[in-house]
């Protein structure tokens, strides 16, 4: 469904992504793990169009994404839950969710989606008329995820949903994500620094280091890889 082939991207003279090829199939939960500065966020921005790759291709379903303007990509069915949440602070929670539902499919499924979002994250229902800026970090992350789901996307991009959250809240959000993936059958591409957790939830994974995919494989094969166990899992 999503296919990146031999992707390069640079900021000025610095290559941030080097020959990255990644694929997400229909209904899969795929994790990209790696240390800070590996280029994970840049990779997501290349998919959403805020970074233009210098070489390579990005395909989504039958579309060549490099020929689709950034804001149109949301309408094709890609929902990007960005790093650092980036909710709209001066708008209420309900207004944030409604903006997520700007796509045609989001409009169509608005009532169903809202019910689902509120059942996954009840705190959003309680606070629906409050400004998003007044929420705690964990609640903002829930809102950011809810805003993504409100679009009725085919692919959900999640950029470090655990960033800056306490382990307890991060675990709660991870569990919700698994539940969301299971019940809605949408494809999920997750970027995480919490490697153990990410590999626990995902069907497949890629390891990105300094802009290159250094390792990829199924959940089981990555969890058993010696290097991963040593470097990321501390075993």
């Amino acid at each position, binding site marked *: 469904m999503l296919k990146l082939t031999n992707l390069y991207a640079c900021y000025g003279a610095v290559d941030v992504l080097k020959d990255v090829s990644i694929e997400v199939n229909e209904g899969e939960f795929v994790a990209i793990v790696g240390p800070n500065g590996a280029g994970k966020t840049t990779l997501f921005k290349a998919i959403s169009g805020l970074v233009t790759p210098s070489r390579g291709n990005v395909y989504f379903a039958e579309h060549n994404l490099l020929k689709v303007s*950034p804001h149109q990509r949301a309408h094709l069915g890609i929902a990007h839950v960005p790093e650092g949440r980036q909710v709209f602070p001066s708008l209420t929670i309900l207004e944030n969710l409604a903006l997520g539902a700007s796509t045609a499919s989001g409009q169509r499924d608005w009532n169903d989606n809202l019910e689902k979002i509120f059942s996954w994250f009840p705190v959003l229902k309680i606070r629906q008329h409050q400004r998003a800026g007044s929420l705690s970090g964990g609640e903002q992350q829930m809102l950011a995820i809810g*805003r993504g789901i409100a679009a009725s996307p085919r692919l959900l991009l999640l950029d470090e949903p655990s960033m800056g959250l306490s382990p307890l809240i991060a675990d709660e959000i991870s569990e919700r994500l698994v539940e969301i993936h299971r019940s809605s059958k949408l494809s999920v591409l997750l970027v995480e620094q919490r490697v153990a957790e990410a590999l626990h939830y995902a069907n497949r994974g890629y390891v990105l280091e300094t802009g290159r995919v250094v390792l990829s494989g199924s959940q089981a094969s990555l969890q058993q890889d010696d290097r991963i166990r040593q470097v990321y899992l501390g075993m």
Partner: protein
Amino acid sequence: MDVVQYIENFLQSFAAGILTGVIYGLMCVGLTVIFGVMRVINFAQGEFMMLGMYFTYFMFSWLGGYPFFDGLYFPFVLALLAGPVLFGVGNLVHRGLLQKVTGQNASRLEGGGHYAQLVLTFGLALVLQNGGLWLFGSTLVSVPSELSYSAWEMGPLYQDRIIIFINQNQSIAALLALAVVLVFARYMARSRLGKSLRAAADNPEAAVYMGIDVSRAHRIAFGFGVGITAIGGGLLASNAPFQPYIGTDYVIIMYAGVVMGGLGSIRGAFLGGLSIGILQQVSASFLPNQLQNTMIFTCFLLTILLRPQGLFGLRERVA
């Protein structure tokens, strides 16, 4: 002069201040929409106000003599019409010029595009001023209005010693300005487009992820901002004579109002403009005319000193 007369003077100028202040408030709202959504400081805002004035003037001179168009209220209709017309002009200016140095294009430029934006809007102001001089001439003009010479009397109050005159022309203009502000604020708060403009203002990057065309949002915001200020210009066109350089006088007032009220919020901008109008008129009743602006800027500086977020400023942006 005895005390009662002082009080009468004060009330008289206070009333006049509210009437002009509401129109300043309207113009400030226009400016703040552009700043709030686009983060662009538009130096040419006064010139768009001037275009609103000339639009009203020329349309009135052209049509005013004909039956059906010769009513007392026709200038007000024209002033309101200046809104959509200048909305279109603003749209084109954004498409042709501003778009190149704002939004996604800005990140590639030095200083996040702010230098280019300042030079561009300042240059635009100069071109519009001198273009106006060339096209409209330097003669002072104004839209004649018989209502300017009629007033409602309030009073007599206090043992028949106080009477306040409320200029009918200014009152209608102020009511219209207030209506435009209320309708616009409600539109921004409730409508789908308003919400997407506020989203683009809050976080342009996330707005793109929501499928919002941020460049289009900027174009609409610029059109709104320019159109709203032009309506303010149109409403002032029968108040006092003007020439193509009038924008420079007003752009300062607009900026003072917007900053005093609190940058980026519609409510703050309106109240800021209103305060400036009141200050200006009230100070005129006890200070020499030349010192009116001194009074405004003394209060402006005091506000900046004591309350940098503005008198009515929230910590977050609303527009």
